[in-house]
């Protein structure tokens, strides 16, 4: 029997890939405070996915189109005025959710689809899903490493970035679209809630442990993959939904990190300096 024929094996592989993907993008989401945008994106891709499945197109295409529209829309709205951005994101979220739900409701037997949209069905992934996630992981990894410096400068110092000749709007869009790719890949397999949880919680936990971006990325990926594997195990052990198990494990990692970093004696500036590699 092929190793991939076992659903649990496929789920394990998917959880590892999904964790890596979520951890990588999570660092950007947490640092740029884009959790709400991510949440809105998970809901707004929903009508695209449903519409695609109704007209019989690949659901990833549907989700990607809807998500790209939302990313562009949010970028345009936030360029106009910052004040309305939170509200506009909220409107996009409600609209996407309602539209998707309305579309689903026109089909019969919809409650199963809806709940799998929310909590995912990581145990039913196919080999094709795995390949898609792997491709997304490679693409997102490439984009993030190639644009690391512009994203760092834009995130840390917008005025300075503009003065240095960077188009901050264009780089924002690069980031939003990258998040969109991740969300569109994650949601069909993992569900909206788990996608959000795996993106935000491990990166937030990693941020507690370190001030160094590369370390933070590595930690976020490790936490996300670890939560995924532990959650999957807990799901089988305690007979709960896999998505819920993973998301609760990720939360536990964050809580534990918070407690441990609080208990840890305050890091003195000197100690932080010593961890630095001496300049060549």
């Amino acid at each position, binding site marked *: 029997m092929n190793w991939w024929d076992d659903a649990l094996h496929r789920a394990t592989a998917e959880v590892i890939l999904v964790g890596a993907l979520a951890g990588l993008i999570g660092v950007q*989401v*947490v640092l*740029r*405070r*884009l*959790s*709400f*945008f991510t*949440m*809105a994106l998970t809901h707004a891709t929903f009508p695209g996915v449903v519409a695609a499945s109704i007209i019989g197109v690949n659901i990833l295409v549907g989700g990607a189109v809807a998500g790209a529209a939302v990313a562009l829309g*949010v970028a345009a709205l936030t360029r106009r*005025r*910052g004040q*309305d*951005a*939170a*509200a*506009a*994101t*909220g*409107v996009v*979220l*409600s*609209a996407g*959710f*309602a*539209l998707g*739900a*309305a579309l689903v*409701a*026109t089909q019969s037997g*919809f*409650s199963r689809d*809806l*709940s799998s949209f*929310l*909590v995912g069905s990581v145990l039913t992934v196919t080999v094709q899903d795995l390949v898609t996630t792997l491709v997304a992981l490679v693409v997102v990894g490439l984009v993030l490493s190639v644009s690391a410096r512009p994203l760092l400068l834009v995130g840390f*110092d*917008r005025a300075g970035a503009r003065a240095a000749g960077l188009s901050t709007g264009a780089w*924002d869009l690069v980031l*939003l679209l990258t998040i969109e790719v991740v969300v569109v890949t994650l949601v069909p397999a993992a569900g909206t*809630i*788990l996608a*959000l*949880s795996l993106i*935000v*919680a491990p990166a*937030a936990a990693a*941020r*507690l442990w370190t001030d160094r971006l590369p370390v933070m990325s590595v930690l976020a990926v490790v936490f996300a993959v670890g939560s995924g594997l532990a959650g999957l195990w807990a799901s089988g052990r305690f*007979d*709960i*939904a896999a*998505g*819920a*198990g993973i*998301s*609760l494990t*990720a939360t536990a990692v*964050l809580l534990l990190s918070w407690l441990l970093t609080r208990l840890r004696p305050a890091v003195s500036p000197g100690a932080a300096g010593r961890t630095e590699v001496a300049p060549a």
Partner: protein
Amino acid sequence: MIEPFTAPFMARALTELALLALICGPISVFVFARRLSFVSDALTHTIFPGVVIGFLAGGLEGLFAGALVAGIVTAVVLTLLTRGGRVSDDAATAVVLTAMFSIGVAMVSRRSSYTSDLTSFLFGRLLTVSPRQIAETAALVVIVLIALVAGARALLFRTFDPGGAAAAGFRVGWLDLWLNILVALVVVAAVRAVGTILVVALLIVPAAAARMVTDRLVVMAAVGTVLILGAGYGGLLLSWTASIHYGVSLTSASSVVLLLVAAYCLLIPVRLIRDRRRRTVTVPRQRSSVHELVG
């Protein structure tokens, strides 16, 4: 146009929506001004475990109590978490949202079939609202309105100028808790009847749409209430017409939300025209936070 509402269940649905319109108009203004969209969205999800525990412990009777307890607990937790610390506000909110919701899912998923529970939580059962539910909603509406009116001045001061409010002797932390609890109460009052999809829309969209036509908070609240009433009436009518005359099953909660969002979109040009008129005096503001792309 009135005929569908002679059916008792349609009349009850409209009554429920009208009651909610009374509080959601004013509350959404605060949600808008304080940028609590994400917090509201979180609250609609976090009461889910309360609903589940309440149902398991006391059946339909316990549901309301469970939602109430969960709502207040998360209001407190969110207030505490969003007061500084190294985990940024929105990340903390996201984690509370996903964690609480997952607890609810974990509990229902231990039962054999949970998808219909989840679905009714999402959509609510607007068309099966009972007189008892309307009475409960009405009671909460009265409580929320009194609490809102009593605290309006302090809440406004804190919204506009947190530093000044603190200097004037207001306890900003308590005011934030106050508002979060009010939002939680609205969610609890509304979610069973109208579902999470509609609640989050009722809390966010009305003020955002009203903001397009006015700068004044009181007018915003009034316009928001009117919009909800209009969308509630229109949405119920739409879903009735669609199912009776065209055989299309259009969930009423979805159609109310979509009408609200349509109103928002239609009002965007009004805003643009008003902006253009004032352009001689306004200068684009710098974003208040360096990288706060979204809220």
